[in-house]
Every structure is written in structure tokens, then in C-alpha cells.
């Protein structure tokens, strides 16, 4: 079953065509890789998908319905959570607080509840806190729950971003280069974590440069180059696609 479908999505910035009628579909329960040389439009696609930019043309269909919203919080509400290429945590809040913010979407206490702190609000706060702790455990950084997000190591910050995204209860987790800057051990651990996440029923859309990670993890891969999708298929198919080799290595070698 298709979870996410992009149909002819285009986006340009001034004279630069960042996305040129990109279409792709992500199946429920798979790990879908999005690769391509720098500047190919991968992050732009993420930004358009999550409502940070609005597309010039084209549509997204998510979970059987059109994703009409162009507002990020509505996209999150529909069940798409993301991380950022250049980590964007709430640096001066603790790791736990960061994940608690992610629960905002699925909880309801307003001003009156906050001021009166009635039984219902207290119960909700307690559940937010315990769920956030669970998620920190899930990604393996519960020991740092009370540390400032900005004080965590690079790998842990990436994990924290993932747990924050998971706390919004997404159906689709969109990760923008989660392994960037990680060493081999950290990358291996990340691969394990992503497999667990998929196993627990969350579909993963992954932008990644680490070829080993993509080949080992993804069920299917799409390749973008200059805003166009030039190939799609299993990692093995894509790896031997002449167009992909040309995009990465240049025409002379192909």
C-alpha cells in the first residue's frame, strides 16, 4: 500500500529549478532512500513535503488523502515527522524537554489547564513526561535526559532529533542525512535503530550520502540529479543504472 506519493512536484528559487516534476511513491513499512549529488534537490523535496516551502506545482498524497496543507504543523499532525540536515534542536532545553515538545501535537492542555493544573492536566503532563523518557530510552540516550541538547555529542544529538520526531507519533519519519558526521560504529548503531523503527511500524524516508548505509538499509532508492528523478528501484538496480553512474562520476566515464 502506498503511504506517500509525490506527483510532479516542482519548485524553483529564482532561476534555479530545485525540483523538476518529481514523482515518487513510498510504500507502507519500507525504508525508502533518496540519494543524489549535492544540490540535487533532496532537502528541497523534504522542505516542500513538510510544508516549509510551498511547491510551485504538483501534489502530495499521504495515507490515502491529498496533503493539501502547506503548513508544517498540519503536515506533522497528518503524521509526517522530520529531522534536519543541520541539526535543529532546542539547544537550551534539556533532552527530555526537547522530546516533550514533540508531544505538543498529541496533547491538549491549554492556558486554563496550565493555570488550574487540574487532575486531567497533571495526568497529561505525567504521560508526556513518561512517553518522552520511553523514547529517549528507545533511541538509547536516556542517560542524558537532563543534559542540555546542545551539550550532547553529535551522534546523540542526531538520536535526540529522531526521538523528538518520533514523539509526534508519525507514520512517516523523514530523516535528512542522519549519518552525516558519524563514525563507523555510530553509523552501524544508527542502522540498527532505523531497522527497529521500521520494524515497529514507522515508514522511513531517508536522505543519505553514506552509500554503504543506503545499500544495506533501503528497500528502494530514488536518485535525484538537478531536481529530476533519474532512477528508482532497489539499491542494486540503481547502483548499476548508467544514468546514476553518469550523475555521480560524470559523462566521460559512463
Amino acid at each position, binding site marked *: 500500500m502506498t503511504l506517500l506519493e509525490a506527483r510532479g512536484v516542482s519548485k524553483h528559487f529564482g532561476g534555479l529549478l530545485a525540483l523538476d516534476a518529481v514523482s515518487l511513491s513510498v510504500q507502507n513499512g519500507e525504508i525508502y532512500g533518496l540519494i543524489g549529488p549535492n544540490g540535487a534537490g533532496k532537502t528541497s523535496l523534504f522542505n516542500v513535503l513538510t510544508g516549509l516551502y510551498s511547491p510551485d506545482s504538483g501534489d502530495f498524497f499521504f495515507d490515502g488523502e491529498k496533503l493539501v496543507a502547506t503548513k508544517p504543523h498540519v503536515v506533522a499532525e497528518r503524521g509526517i*515527522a522530520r529531522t534536519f540536515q543541520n541539526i535543529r534542536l*532546542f539547544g537550551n532545553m534539556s533532552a527530555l524537554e526537547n522530546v516533550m515538545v514533540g508531544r*505538543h501535537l498529541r496533547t491538549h*492542555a491549554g492556558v486554563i489547564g496550565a493555570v488550574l*493544573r487540574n487532575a486531567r492536566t497533571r495526568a497529561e503532563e505525567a504521560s508526556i513526561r513518561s512517553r518522552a523518557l520511553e523514547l529517549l530510552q528507545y533511541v538509547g540516550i536516556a542517560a542524558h535526559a537532563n*543534559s542540555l541538547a546542545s551539550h550532547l555529542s553529535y551522534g546523540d544529538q542526531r538520536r535526540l532529533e529522531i526521538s523528538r520526531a518520533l514523539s509526534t507519533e508519525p507514520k512517516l519519519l523523514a530523516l535528512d542525512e542522519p549519518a552525516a558526521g558519524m563514525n563507523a560504529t555510530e553509523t552501524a548503531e544508527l542502522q540498527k535503530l532505523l531497522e527497529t523503527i521500521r520494524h515497529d511500524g514507522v515508514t522511513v524516508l531517508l536522505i543519505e550520502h553514506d552509500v554503504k548505509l543506503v545499500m544495506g538499509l533501503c528497500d528502494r532508492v530514488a536518485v535525484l540529479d538537478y531536481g529530476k528523478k533519474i532512477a528508482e528501484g532497489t539499491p542494486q538496480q540503481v547502483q548499476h543504472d548508467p544514468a546514476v553512474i553518469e550523475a555521480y562520476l560524470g559523462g566521460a566515464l559512463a
Partner: protein
Amino acid sequence: MSGLGKLKRNPRAAWVAFALLAILLALLPFLAGSLLGRSWVRILDFVLLYIMLALGLNIVVGFAGLLDLGYVAFFAVGAYMYALLASPQFGIHLPFWALLPLGAGVSCIFGVLIGAPTLRLRGDYLAIVTLGFGEIIRIFLNNLDAPVNITNGPQGINNIDPVSIGGFSFYQTHRLFDVNFSSVYNYYYLFLALTTLVIFVSMRLQDSRIGRAWAAVREDEVAAKAMGINTRNIKLLAFAMGASFGGVSGGLFSAFQGFISPESFTLIESIMILCMVVLGGMGNIAGVVLGVVLLVVLPEALRYIGPAEQALLGRVFVDPDDLRMLIFGLALILVMLFRPAGLLPSTIRKREFAAEDEAESQDGIPT
């Protein structure tokens, strides 16, 4: 803050400390009145009034990180709301219990009206636009005496009803246990009660789902959006809450003074309130209270320098008014140099300004 931490773990000591503080605050006007003179009781009233006002701005600037330079507009709206509905201006005299929520409500609406067009702006740009809005409101108040006289223009509104609750007039002197409670004393207790309420609401808001969302917007608006926070609503909520605090203090100001004019709501007033928040420590309620106390009490205390010069040196060498501004400016520069996060910074601000001091939290020790 370790003292506070200890108190939290020992509820009995906390109650004792709380009771002592309550007794001290209850006796404070009498101490000030008998030791320093009655004018100081009035100054205490103003301290409380400004605490309410500054805590409102603290929600906008401290919690949500939206630099608002026109905050005094809401103070003005609350003040005029009260003045128009409880003075001979229109011959309307609504009761206090109706005016207080009305002032809060109308200011709240103004908060949203001014907040809405500025939602896309941040930092300096937001500051400039809010500054403009603040001035617009003041100029409106100044000119709304023609063609239909609403605000009485620059002359202001006079003979505003003092606060009166159920036949108890705060303006008259009451005698209780052989002690005379004159108007400034009555208002002190009213303001104290309301300030306590405002502090309570601020604390509860800060430590809640809403407070976390404000902090998230302050930290990284894009990430907050992507995490499903409706940043438009949450920012408007901050403007509305802050404005309603301002409206309440405006109404009280009207009643307390008995007279208001647009002159009380100039830009410099906005800047003073912002200084109180920043000096004490943005986002930290105790810090804001300290900032207000310092910025209201110090200038008053410096008034004594004139007579002191006269007595000691035979004539006044430095005009106390000049000295006030000099010391004020110097104090602000020193605070910004040595305690950039404010005198009593909030934990979050402290972290921000001490990012290099990372050693202890690496091991997951709560900071």
C-alpha cells in the same frame, strides 16, 4: 538557587519561609511608612503595579522570545478602558469587578490585533514594528478628542473612580484594630493580592505544555513548526496573555492615580518596562520582580542625594535628576557586561550565556 532547591525538598521549611515572607509583605507598608514616610508606601504600590506589568511583558519577551517595544500600548488600553467606563467622561460608572476582566479582555483583543500582522517578523524587525504600534495607540489616544470627544485628548481623563468592592472604598481611610488604613495602604493590599495571582499564573504557564511550546518557538521557530506546534497561535497566545496582564495593571493604574493622560504611555515607558525585564533576567519570574524593585526604588532613593548634598556641602553640585539617569545608564552597562543574562537569569538564559561551561552536564547531571 540552591536555597530554593532545598526548600522544595523540605515542605515544612518551605511553609515556614512562605509564612515569614507573607508576614513581612503584610507589614512592609507600615515599616516603610513609619521609617521612610508615607510617600514610600506609594512607591511600594508602584512596585507591585510594575511587577504585574513587567510579568506580562516577560511572557512575550522572556518566555516566547518576541521582542516587543510597544508593550506600554496595552497598559494604555487597560488604563483608558477603565477610565472611560468609570469616570464622569461619559458618566458611566461600572463596578470594579466588571472593569477588571473587561480591561484584561479588551487588552487581550488588542494584543491579538497587534500581534497578528507581526507574526512573520523576528528580532529587530518585530521590535521596530511593535514600537510603531505602541506609538500609534498613544497618538490615537492623544487625538481622539475630535470630532467626537472620546479620550479628552492631551488633557487626559480626570476624576476616575477609585477601586470600590462591595461598598468598601479603597480611597477612604478605614480603621481596623486601632490602625488607620489610608488609601495607599488599602491599594497596597489589593495590589499585593493581584500581584501574587499574576506571579502564580506566570509560574504555572511557564511550567506547562504552553510554556514549553513558547520556549521551543524562542529556541528555533522552524523546528517548533516541524514538530507540529502551530506557531501562529502560540505566538498570538503569548501576545494575548502578555497584553491582558498589561491591561489589568493599566486599569489599576487608572484607579490608583485617578487621572491619566497619553503622556503616561510614551515609548520611554515601554523601554523602562523592558529594562526591568532584561535587568532582572528575562524569563525568570524572580528576576523580573528584582528588576522592577531596583528600577522603581533606586530612582526614588536617589532623590535623597539632593538634600544630602545641600546639607553636607552647602549647595547642590549635581542635580539628582541627572545623577539618576547617569547611575541608571551605568548600572545597565555594568549588568550587560558582567551579567549579560540578567541579575537573576532564568535557567535557560543562563545556559545560553554560559554555553562554554559544559563540563558538568556532559555526565547528565541536571543543571
